[in-house]
């Protein structure tokens, strides 16, 4: 049988069938370019690429940007003016932003908001106006272009925004100082009203993603059970996932959700969701759910697992130990895709170590095969 392409390997595992080898891939925006990247791709590393499938327009909203000094730091202030009031956010940028990969800095850190759009209760009505006057328009060129460029070397995913609750928690209110939780406790009506408005406004977006040529829609959440406890996950995230999945599945499309936090406390609830791919799942010591246990629990899902940053920072020997342990705990290795990093750039040494292990991970995995890989590294 001919060897699978990287694309076939990733999609076969993701469709819960057995691939020829354990698929492994690098996230385009964390991947350096150069001789190590070439070597790793020659060893079988695929690439996955998030691209937008839409453009959005806000009607009746004016925006402007200016540089200001806030709390002693130079920040970029973006102000939105609407008929019901104005709100602004401040953004701090590291060196390298706009000189590297778009908005990433030299260290691959994205600009961070030092002041969020919602600061107090008076800001909710302005943001609600913006949400209710946002129009989503299909725009598939970035997807088509990436698919053309990538070919069989990887997979392209529709990049969708955070789900409504996570949009509020991560992007618009923010969890700094616990602000989102405090707002939710003090102003529950305002928070829930805006949540419902976002949820309604996103409905056309799911249709747009469902009809894009990419095989997978990526819901850019950032699920962590410590921040997002089971009560909140069940009440605010699960219904949205069900709504989104229904539309995507009607068009034969897979749904991925980024869950790179400590999800042990959510594991039984995640099992009940219609999500096809738990993406970015991070094993201990950063995460708290072993990958083998996740695969056993979520038999109707594929798991794309990341290598924890806290292992990468310890260097290639720690990476080797982690990768071999991972292979030993995942049974046959079916339904599993290994992501070489989901949150930070990988050093040359780590990348070479990981790919020297993964390139030989033929499926189904067995103890003998893994022992042989280990001996080859000695």
């Amino acid at each position: 049988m001919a060897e699978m392409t990287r694309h076939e390997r990733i999609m076969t595992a993701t469709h819960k069938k057995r691939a020829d080898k354990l698929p492994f891939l690098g996230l385009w925006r964390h991947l350096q370019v150069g001789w190590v990247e070439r070597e790793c791709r020659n060893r079988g590393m695929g690439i996955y690429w998030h691209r937008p499938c839409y453009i959005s327009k806000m009607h009746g909203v004016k925006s402007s940007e200016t540089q200001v000094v806030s709390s002693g730091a130079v920040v970029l202030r973006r102000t939105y003016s609407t008929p019901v009031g104005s709100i602004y956010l401040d953004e701090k940028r590291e060196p390298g932003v706009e000189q590297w990969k778009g908005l990433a800095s030299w260290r691959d850190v994205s600009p961070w908001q030092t002041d969020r759009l919602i600061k107090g209760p008076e800001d909710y009505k302005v943001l609600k106006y913006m949400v209710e006057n946002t129009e989503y328009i299909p725009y598939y060129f970035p997807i088509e272009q990436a698919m053309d460029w990538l070919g069989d070397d990887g997979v392209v995913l529709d990049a969708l925004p955070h789900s409504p609750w996570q949009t509020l928690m991560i992007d618009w209110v923010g969890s700094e100082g616990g602000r989102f939780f405090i707002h939710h406790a003090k102003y529950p009506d305002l928070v829930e009203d805006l949540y419902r408005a976002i949820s309604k406004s996103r409905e056309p977006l799911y249709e747009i993603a469902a009809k894009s040529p990419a095989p997978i829609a990526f819901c850019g959440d950032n699920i962590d059970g410590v921040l997002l406890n089971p009560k909140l996950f069940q009440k605010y995230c699960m219904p949205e996932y069900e709504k989104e999945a229904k539309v995507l599945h009607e068009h034969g499309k897979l749904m991925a959700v980024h869950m790179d936090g400590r999800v042990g406390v959510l594991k039984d609830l995640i099992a009940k969701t219609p999500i096809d791919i738990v993406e970015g799942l991070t094993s201990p010591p950063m995460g708290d759910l072993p990958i083998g246990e996740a695969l056993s629990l979520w038999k109707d899902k594929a798991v794309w697992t990341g290598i924890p940053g806290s292992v990468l920072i310890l260097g290639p020997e720690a990476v080797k130990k982690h990768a071999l342990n991972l292979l030993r705990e995942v049974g046959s290795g079916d339904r599993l895709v290994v992501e070489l990093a989901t949150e930070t750039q990988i050093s040359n040494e780590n990348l070479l170590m990981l790919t020297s292990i993964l390139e030989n991970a033929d499926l189904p995995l067995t103890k003998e095969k893994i022992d042989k890989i280990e001996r080859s590294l000695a």
Partner: protein
Amino acid sequence: MVKEKYLESLKESIVNLDFNTVVEIAKEAMDAGVDPHTAITDGMVPGMTIVGEKYETGEYFLSELVVAGAVMKEGMEIINPYIKGDSSKRLGKVVIATVEGDNHDLGKNIVTTLLGVQGFEVVDLGRDVPTDKIIAAVKERKPDILGLSALLTVTMSKMGEAIEALKAAEIREKVKVIVGGSPVTPEFAESIGADHCAVNALEGIKKCTEWVTPQEVR
């Protein structure tokens, strides 16, 4: 209302995460002449202790811990002006910061609140704090403990940088260093020469308390 009733209501308002009641009862208690220190130590602090216990048993989650801290803070804002001088005995002093390049301060803020509840004097340097500012604060404030927090793996190295700077300033032996944050592991803490890696906020507080408590009292 008798004093005990005020104290019970303050405690309950924290446990029930009730912003309105804590402010209302704190005002009433102060108007009724309840000693402000007693209102804090015998009213609100036991409330936070119960919240901490509920967190440890899984009945409450991080969100409730954060909100309880915010409720207590609002109550303290009413009571603080009634406190004359600083007659309270402090358990120890902690300088705490989220390291440079990192804007995530949720965990640090929870620890700061709980340290205050426990009786520590806390010097909170905030988030995205450069190493030289941390070292200057340690030199000036002479804390028993330095707490460093990071959420991003790309900023974790700043923790090691701070410890090296303490050594260079010849003050490393004068202060215990505790590190914490989602990506921070005991292995990493050991590799940079920290004294302890906090598994979570409550465990970190216990370690800090242990450090400042004489051996024979433990």
